[in-house]
């Protein structure tokens, strides 16, 4: 256990630091990138190849607006997002976050032209080595996304949607997209592993699929039992046989009235949602990991004498802004993630007795291996559940507040003390569990023999109802399904609490 952890052998101290004017040039970016890449290799970061792109503020807002992707299909909501971003940027309410990085191979990182040289170096260390290695290593990303094909797929999606607009009119396509977007969060496979996207296959198979799918749909409705069988089959025919968590997938495959192109649009939205699914579950880890590495890499370069004091001052100021945790209010994911990564290193390098008791497996181990293991095999929920230490809970002065709507007051249910550590940790882990955060709604049944209505079932957790948007979303579901749609909310015992329904608008 007590092996001495030797830091990665630093090359000899540099004769003189890298030049550091505040204006960047392409040569300087390449120089800094090389130095950062060298350092990252020494720490064993495994990344996709990097592609750095210099962009303007307007392009950055543009990327923001289309959920960070360099290409995307056209939709009014992206226009709205752009206007909102532009407005707050103009008013100076928000500096543009200085980085966007795309989980693709090669991994694309955006460098904004307004950034000073130290900022560019920070972004390269943070995005091109931090996030990049996370994308390549984390199990969720490995399982759900295929970095090499996402850009191609989005190009395909954009072209396809544009073709649809030409053929069927912008409005019809927009309606489809609106409805699909409303269900985006419920359009992902949570447990099953999808096939990886491949553009070539997508294209070749699209037309086959259209024909085949349509036929399947027709089959489903054609093989309906004749009314005479009704009684006998009552209990046996249940469709779907199991509840389905991926509502969009179910609609794509089984909605009776959709035309082939509409199914393809559903599929596109579904695929994009699936691509972002891992990101939604690894915010703390992903940002924590990237922040930890820009901090570690740049500090290590400073120790080698590669960076000037001026550089470090500017870097540390930005870094501090990023990891500030104001008391009260929301937890800053950068702050929590960064602190946890640092804390794991601390537990490995200089464990206290408390750490040895709480983390017997990792206390005193090789920090790089441990951190790498943590990065690869966890998501926010399990990462917090596994690695949040009492030390850190004390440092953040965490406390849990229980909000029971039936009680007149809130109750402090746990604080950072011996009795509260485990409960705090569980509670925080649950807070980042996507299945807890988003309502559990599944496709429950289809009335194949009656009015073809679709029933969705919302399993209420801890008595939490849906908000008012639910009725709006239900209208969208009805538009996609083409017939009556019912949403029933049930409690854990299957007792129905609320029931609402929507019909497709006839026009």
């Amino acid at each position, binding site marked *: 256990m007590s092996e001495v952890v030797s830091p990665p052998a630093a090359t000899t101290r540099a004769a003189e630091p890298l030049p550091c004017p505040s204006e960047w040039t*392409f040569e300087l*970016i*390449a120089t800094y990138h090389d130095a950062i890449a060298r350092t990252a290799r020494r720490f064993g970061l495994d*990344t996709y190849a*990097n592609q750095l*792109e*210099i962009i303007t503020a*307007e*392009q950055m807002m*543009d990327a923001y607006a289309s959920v960070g992707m360099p290409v995307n299909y056209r*939709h*009014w909501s*992206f*226009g*709205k997002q*752009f206007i*909102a971003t532009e407005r707050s940027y103009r008013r100076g309410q928000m500096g543009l976050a200085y980085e966007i990085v795309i989980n693709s191979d*090669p991994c694309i990182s955006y460098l904004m032209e307004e950034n000073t040289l130290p900022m560019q170096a920070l972004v390269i260390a943070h995005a091109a080595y931090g996030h990049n290695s996370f994308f390549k290593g984390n199990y969720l990303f490995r399982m759900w996304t295929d970095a090499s094909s996402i850009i191609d797929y989005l190009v395909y999606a954009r072209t396809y949607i544009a073709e649809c607009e030409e053929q069927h009119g*912008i409005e019809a396509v*927009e309606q489809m997209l*609106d409805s699909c*977007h*409303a*269900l985006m969060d419920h359009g992902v496979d949570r447990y099953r592993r999808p096939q990886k996207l491949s553009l070539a296959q997508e294209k070749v198979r699209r037309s086959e699929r259209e024909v085949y799918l349509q036929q399947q749909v027709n089959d489903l409705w054609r093989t309906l039992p004749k009314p005479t069988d009704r009684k006998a089959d009552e209990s046996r025919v249940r469709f779907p046989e199991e509840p389905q968590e991926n509502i969009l997938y179910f609609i794509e495959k089984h909605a009776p009235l959709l035309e082939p192109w509409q199914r393809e649009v559903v599929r596109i939205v579904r695929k994009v949602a699936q691509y972002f699914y891992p990101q939604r579950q690894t915010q703390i880890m992903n940002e924590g990991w990237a922040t930890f590495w820009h901090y570690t890499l740049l500090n290590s370069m400073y120790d080698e004498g590669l960076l000037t004091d001026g550089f470090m001052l500017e870097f540390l100021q930005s870094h501090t802004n990023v990891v500030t*945790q104001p*008391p*009260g*209010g*929301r937890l800053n994911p950068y702050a929590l993630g960064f602190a946890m990564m640092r804390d794991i290193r601390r537990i490995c390098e200089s464990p206290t007795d408390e750490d040895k008791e709480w983390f017997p497996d990792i206390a005193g181990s090789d920090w790089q291996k441990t951190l790498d293991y943590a990065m690869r095999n966890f998501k926010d929920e399990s990462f917090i559940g596994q690695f949040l230490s009492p030390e850190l809970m004390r440092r953040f*002065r*965490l*406390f*849990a*507040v*229980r*909000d*029971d*709507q039936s009680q007149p*007051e809130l*109750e*402090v*249910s746990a604080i950072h*003390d011996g009795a509260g550590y485990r409960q705090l940790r569980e*509670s925080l882990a*649950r*807070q*980042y569990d996507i299945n807890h955060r*988003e*309502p559990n709604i599944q496709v429950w049944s289809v009335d194949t023999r009656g009015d073809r209505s679709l029933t969705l079932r919302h399993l*209420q*957790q*801890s*008595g*939490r*109802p*849906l*908000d008012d*948007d*639910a009725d709006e*979303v239900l209208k969208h579901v009805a538009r996609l399904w083409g017939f009556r749609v019912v949403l029933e909310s049930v409690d854990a015992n299957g007792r129905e609490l609320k029931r609402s329904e929507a019909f497709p608008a006839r026009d």
Partner: protein
Amino acid sequence: MLQQIIDRRLSGKNKSIGNRERFLKRYREQIRDAVQRAIGERSIRDIDKGETVTVPRKDLSEPSFRHGSGGVREHVIPGNREYSRGDRIERPKGGAGGKGGGNASPDGEGEDDFAFSLSREEFMHYFFEDLALPNLVRTQLAETPEFKFRRAGFTGDGTPNNIHVLRSMRGALGRRIALGSEHRRKLAELRVMLAEARRRPETPAKDIALFEDEIDRLVRRLRAIPYLDPIDLRYRNRVRVPQPVSKAVMFCVMDVSGSMDEARKDIAKRFFILLYLFLTRHYERTEVVFIRHHTQADEVNEHDFFHATESGGTVVSSALLLMQDIIRARYPSGEWNIYGAQASDGDNWGQDSAKCRELLETSLLPLVRYFAYVQVAEGEQSLWEEYTRVAADNPHFAMRMIAGAADIYPVFRDLFRKEAAT
């Protein structure tokens, strides 16, 4: 591991324009309302500017299944200073349980409206849309007039063919003097001292060598000052200035008797605006004269023109007479391109209509380039009949009965057609 650094700055500008178009299209109704309101409030002269449009945020929301308030939930919050386990806290007011937690519910505060600005082009687009203008005319009006390059002093950067040699050399000379003067002064002193030292035989050779070295150094320094540096270069600066033809005056004549209600005035205003836009595109200077009349005519400012209502009868010729007087006094027809635009509900005092025709035919029409008349109400009364006779004989007199904004453009059709042809 670096594949490449790509400079994207020049590519993909305005990439989100397609998304913006879709957004604007979706909120067309709200935008049209805002444009409508802006047209009502703005002065004719300010018409071609952008506008801020506000859309209620709830209309913009994209719904999704989310947890609402209610039930049991637990939040973990940092920064505990005062609480211990089991403490009770009063529920924060408004938006129950909205803090922390995973669901960023948009309820409670933050409900302010979503405002965004229309560019000038977009604003004009919506303005024209109502008027049912043909596309050619739209571009004609929306586009800024022809430009001419005009000299405007000198700048520090430009293209080589614009280098101004004299200025550049003058700057270089000044820089050389400024940079070298200190050295030259020292050099002169040293030379004097060297000559002095040489004259005295007792001076050690070492000192003389020292002087010579120093002189050498200074001469080298002076030589190192570049003869011409990039910062010396001066370029002729040229700016683009709009290049319309000359000047025009536009007479807005409107009946403000009691029967002209707000809706009719609104249509009349659009009619005036359209003519105004046309004129500003073609003339360097466009002046507007507002004449309102009932039984008497007054020259007024724009606000009173559109916003004051009088009652009583109507004598149209009074306005035409006033217009004639003003032309004589201030706008000699040799120097000014005169345009007339008249809006009325068609009422006139019986004997007056014939007088109007005579006035137009004999004194006004020979002076003006174009005269357009709109009647914003149904019914052919005496004025309409007399004017019809005028129109038959004079190609630059246009008239039309209009019920809505879309009917305005045809009044000007001839005017615009002529322009499009030239």
